[in-house]
């Protein structure tokens, strides 16, 4: 009894101490008046070890060089950042500087939550990032105009990660960025690599939509078209091509493992390391996990994006934005300009194993080395164009309610390609209709 009482007493004391420790309401980012430094809150979504280190290092360098503008590093998480932001925006208490990805910015921009950065980004940073990347952060302002609602700094392309020994053993050509595999050649290679108990390729399709839509651009498939201000879904021959080819690998060629369909992006890695799959189509960031988890002696290689009519892929960006409610937007922009300068972008790209948008950063020797496929990954950035779905109001609902279940059924061979196309278009247009009213 005495011990129990002691525990309660300790808890009560700790509560008293803890309740006092929070301080403030979180809404005051610092006034900058009376000689006090301006305080900015920076919500970062870095999660890999090297990336967190790079973020913290850059923030520390900034804080040391700018005693009058102090930045507090707050780590968020990708899983729930948009829930966190919506409540912060609605309650008028958002972080000053916000890390997110470009698809999320569209709705925040149209609701007036983000600052329009048009004409505000310093020329040096503006000119260092190609227009194609700026297009990924240019959205409707919710009235009649367009604005720039973030600074794009990291991008992802889809590459192939392959077991080098299996490729060499099968005597297939190893593609280069200048001479990538075509989809036909890829299909032939996957068949050659398929043997008893081992498949040429694994398509993890737990979240198939973005992957399919980004790759569909290889054949000019856009999935959406806008006429007279009205956006509709289309699923014609160009949109169907990648869908059909993946399905063929699964059920006609049998060169892709159907049991990998329900997997997330990183889930096939154990099978890949064990030689069960020879090739993994994946985002460039997966190289980090391959490098970290591969058994010793395992030889792997990064292969460039596939080519259809072109090698174009839909791009989305990771971005830094400024909250419209920030009390210190100018200081926030100054911090962003520093945080995303060429050398810093190179650090961030290395930390996240992604591609920098900065042309200066892309020339960093560490991002063009052959080690861990950086040369191939960085070269793939030239194929990135703005993803057509990025500008579609209602895309998220179409994706979750219509496209994801329909594509999963199609890849599970439960519905035909025609039926898939019908559902994507008919059910999809009903969704988009609501957003255009």
């Amino acid at each position, binding site marked *: 009894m005495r011990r129990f009482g002691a525990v*309660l007493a300790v808890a009560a004391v700790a*509560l008293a101490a803890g309740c006092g420790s*929070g301080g403030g309401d979180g809404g005051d980012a610092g006034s900058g008046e009376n000689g006090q430094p301006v305080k900015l809150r920076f919500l970062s979504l870095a999660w890999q070890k090297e990336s967190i280190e790079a973020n913290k290092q850059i923030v520390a360098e900034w804080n040391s060089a700018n005693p009058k503008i102090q930045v507090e590093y707050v*780590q968020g998480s990708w*899983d729930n950042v948009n829930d966190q932001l919506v409540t912060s925006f609605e309650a008028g208490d958002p*972080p000053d500087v916000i890390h997110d990805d470009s698809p999320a910015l569209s709705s925040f921009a149209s609701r007036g939550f983000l600052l329009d950065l048009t004409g505000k980004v310093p020329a040096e940073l503006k000119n260092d990032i190609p227009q194609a990347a700026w297009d990924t952060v240019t959205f409707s302002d919710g009235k009649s105009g367009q604005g720039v609602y973030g600074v794009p700094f990291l991008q992802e392309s889809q590459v192939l990660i392959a077991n080098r020994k299996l490729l060499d053993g099968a005597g297939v050509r190893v593609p280069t960025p200048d001479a990538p595999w075509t989809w036909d050649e890829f299909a032939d290679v996957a068949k050659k690599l398929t043997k008893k108990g081992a498949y040429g390729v694994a398509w993890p399709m737990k979240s198939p939509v973005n992957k399919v839509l980004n790759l569909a651009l290889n054949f000019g498939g856009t999935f959406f078209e806008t006429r007279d201000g009205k956006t509709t879904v289309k699923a014609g021959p160009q949109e169907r091509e990648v869908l059909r080819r993946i399905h063929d690998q699964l059920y006609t060629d049998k060169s892709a493992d159907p049991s990998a369909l329900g997997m997330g992006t990183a889930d096939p890695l154990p099978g890949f390391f064990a030689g069960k799959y020879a090739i993994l189509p994946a985002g460039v960031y997966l190289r980090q996990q391959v490098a970290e988890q591969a*058994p010793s002696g395992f030889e792997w290689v990064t292969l460039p994006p596939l080519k259809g009519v072109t090698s174009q892929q839909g791009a989305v960006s990771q971005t830094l934005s400024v909250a419209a409610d920030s009390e210190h937007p100018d200081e926030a922009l100054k911090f962003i300009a520093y945080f995303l300068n060429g050398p810093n972008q190179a650090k961030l790209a290395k930390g996240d194993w992604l591609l920098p948008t900065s042309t200066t950063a892309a020339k960093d020797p560490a991002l063009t080395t052959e080690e861990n496929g950086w040369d191939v990954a960085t070269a793939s950035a030239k194929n990135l164009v703005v993803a057509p779905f990025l500008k579609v109001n209602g895309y998220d609902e179409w994706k979750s309610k219509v496209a994801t279940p329909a594509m999963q059924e199609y890849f599970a061979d439960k519905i035909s390609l025609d039926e898939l196309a019908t559902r994507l278009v008919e059910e999809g247009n009903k969704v988009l209709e609501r957003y255009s009213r």
Partner: protein
Amino acid sequence: MRTDMTRALRYLALLGYVVFLAFPLLWLLSTALKTPQEMAALDPAWIPRRPTLANFADAFGEQDLVGAALRSLVVAVATALITVALALPAAYALARHRGAAGRVAIGWVLVSQVFPVVLVIIPLFMVLRRLELVNTLAGLTVVHVTFVMPFALWMLRGYVRAVPRELEEAAAVDGAGRLRALAAVVAPLLAPGVVATLLFGFISSWNEFLFALVILKDPEVETLPLTLVRFVGPEGVARLGPLAAASLLATVPSLVFFAIIQRRLRSGLMAGAVKG
């Protein structure tokens, strides 16, 4: 012979159940001690071939796990205590006075459970902001108490109703006043229920994520669930090693709290039996 057989089967079933319950914890421990290569093996092994503490070093080096755990502990213990302190008298009143008002009150308590959290989270945030409780553990505790209270009230009402009213009447006949009867007769019998409710309040608060995510904004005040999610990246890709190491830490206070509470649960039961 048959008795021995039955006993053996019973122990076997019990052992199976214990293994089943312990499986997640043992797997968590195994994962936390593995190298990235072992974690990515196609045939996972129970016992790491080359156990490493690197995952613990990464987890503790990158995040303030101990601080977050202490803050979670403060909020969870406070939530459990305050909830029971407030709910117990109300539960007693609702259990003993069975008028129309009581039925309406308990009905309203149940109805309050059907509102989805997302519906209230923004208004709640604004209220807390006005009270200057955003970004404080006190604010989070208030919210946790508010959301644990209805079910705690419901639980405690059931325990109070299970104590025969005749025992209080008998105590009164023996000359005990109302407070004395409550303290000497009812309280010991309610102890197991109180302890169970404390446990419910603690675990609800300890695991709570969404309110903490919205209310706590600075790293200096964040609780453990917020820290754990930092090891998860986009599309559900996670850094399994540090996540397992950190999650292992997250389970320890719950286990310790349960061990303490469980002894009270047993003694409370026995006390109730003697008094009854």
